[in-house]
């Protein structure tokens, strides 16, 4: 197990199970029709199945898995957005979640107003926001757009502002979901640097991302989920290799005949890190969209 200072836990996930109900019919008419046809009205599926994990203070942990494996659900349960059905979650200190880009940014408000509003949503008071305001704006690099409604921002600017506010809340536990998939390379570098600095300061991070290479850079520990169960919990490299392998398996299943780029390394075990480098370019963009769909 990682980290010398893991005597104190930052996040304790204990046998968490979460089931979702898919309702096929909502209106009385549809319900009647389905019942007459003998179809099911609802279906339940298990998103998380007795997941346990303890994350120590100062650890940076990646949650990995293919789409629908339950990693976003787990992150939401840690953040408190949804409670587990059974089991328990406990967290130490202030948590700030960056669960999808700019959830708290309001399109009609200006960048300046959004800094205050989103800061307050993430738990900062006015004095703290004022103190950090310049630093937030500088990091976001939105310049003269600061007093424009966020609606007019480019997606990159939007994301930069959201990210900048979130990092400046200085949470004890920082939850990040899929936010690093967007943004220009330069800003991405800046974010990664910031996250590393953050890690060095002894704060705790839990990250969900599809980019194996990026996770290797930032995290020390990986938890690999499959169908709501923990398959691997340990060093990040093994977890990332597992992700690359699973993704290849999936791709192979999807189109067994034509897979020119991934067919090249048959000895995938040894060159896993090499093939994962090609992952971020091809992989994350489409899968991030699909994840957003299944994660809600």
């Amino acid at each position, binding site marked *: 197990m990682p980290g010398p200072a893991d005597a*104190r*836990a930052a996040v*304790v996930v204990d046998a968490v199970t979460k089931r*979702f109900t898919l309702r096929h019919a909502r209106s009385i008419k549809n319900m009647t029709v389905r019942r007459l046809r003998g179809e099911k009205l609802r279906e339940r599926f298990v998103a998380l199945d007795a997941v346990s994990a303890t994350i120590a*203070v100062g650890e940076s942990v990646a949650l990995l898995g293919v789409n629908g494996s339950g990693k976003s659900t787990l992150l*939401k349960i*840690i*953040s*408190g*957005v*949804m*409670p587990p059905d059974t089991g*328990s*979650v*406990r*967290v*130490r*200190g*202030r*948590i700030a*979640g960056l*669960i*999808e880009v700019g*959830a*708290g940014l*309001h399109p*009609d*408000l200006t960048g300046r*107003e959004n800094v*205050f*509003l989103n800061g*307050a*949503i*993430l*738990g*900062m*008071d*006015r*004095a*703290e926001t004022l103190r950090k305001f310049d630093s937030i704006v500088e990091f976001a690099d939105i310049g003269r757009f600061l007093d424009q409604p966020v609606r007019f921002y480019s997606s990159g600017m939007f994301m930069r502002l959201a990210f900048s506010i979130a990092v400046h*809340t*200085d*949470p*004890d536990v920082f939850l990040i979901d899929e936010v690093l998939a967007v943004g220009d390379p330069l800003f991405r570098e800046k974010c990664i640097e910031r996250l590393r600095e953050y890690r060095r300061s*002894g*704060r705790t991070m839990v990250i969900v991302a599809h980019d194996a290479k990026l996770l290797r850079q930032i995290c020390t520990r990986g938890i690999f989920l499959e169908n709501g169960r923990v398959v691997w919990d340990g060093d990040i490299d093994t977890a990332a290799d597992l992700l690359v392998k699973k993704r290849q398996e999936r791709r192979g299943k999807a189109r067994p005949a034509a897979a020119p780029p991934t067919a090249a390394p048959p000895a995938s075990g040894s060159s896993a890190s090499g093939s994962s480098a090609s992952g971020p370019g091809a992989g994350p963009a489409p899968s991030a969209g699909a994840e957003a769909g299944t994660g*809600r």
Partner: protein
Amino acid sequence: MTAGAGLAGPGPADPGLVEPGLADPGLVEPGRGGGLAEVVRRRYLLRLIVRRELRARYQGSLLGLGWSYVRPAAHFSVFFFVVGVFLGMNKNVQHFPIFMFSGLILVSFFNETLINTTHSVIGNAPLVRKVYLPRELFPVASLLVSGVHLLPGLAIVLTVSITWGWTPSVVAVGSALLGFALIAVLGIGLGLMCSALHVFYRDTDKVVDIATLFVTWSVPMIYPWTVVRDTAPGWALDLYLANPVADAVLLFERAFWWPTTDRTFLFPPHLTRDGLISLALAVLLLGAGQLVFARLQRRFAEEL
């Protein structure tokens, strides 16, 4: 403005300002809502959300907050001409405009609260889904926004009644406060229930919409309560007066209209006592609303 920010300043409940490692906040369950009490603790955020609602509502409109004058004015003129002039209520009720308007602003406040709170959680779906906040913030913010819209109407009522000889008195001010408290508590209590229900059944806002129609006509706002007394059987009158909104409207009339008249108009006996009983029941309803909301909010994120 800044006083609130000072109050919302760093307190012991804010572990973010504590350097990690220095103080141990201990392990706690995330997302354990403290209900309305937590809303009070996070009043700085509440104020920003109220401001956002107001800003967003009038975004890009020429009149801006001026619309909150136009709506009651339009309501007023419709009722004034139809009921007051054409149906002759002006002759039956002294100072009919102020009689009607004092009730109208309160009923509008109630209806607006009910409609806005019902939509409040769904309207903030992106936040509810992704960030943990005490969700009671949203209905409470809607209540406060309606409260802001009540102010222009209240100013008009006061101005007109003062020109008609209104002076402050214990009965007037007390009645006004009791009427307002009754509607605010009732509104947020029902609003908490409706907003939570609306997440699961999108029929709720339709029901609320129809309910507001009944509210408008089932209170002594465009006709005096004596009309009901003189035409309906005794049990119907009891039922009519048991409506807390009717109590509140009567209280507002006693506060703003009655002092401007020759004071011969009789209110139902025990109006103050009934108002207080209604308020107590409204507080109970608020408690129930908080319970329902707290239960249902656990499933908000997956339902939205």
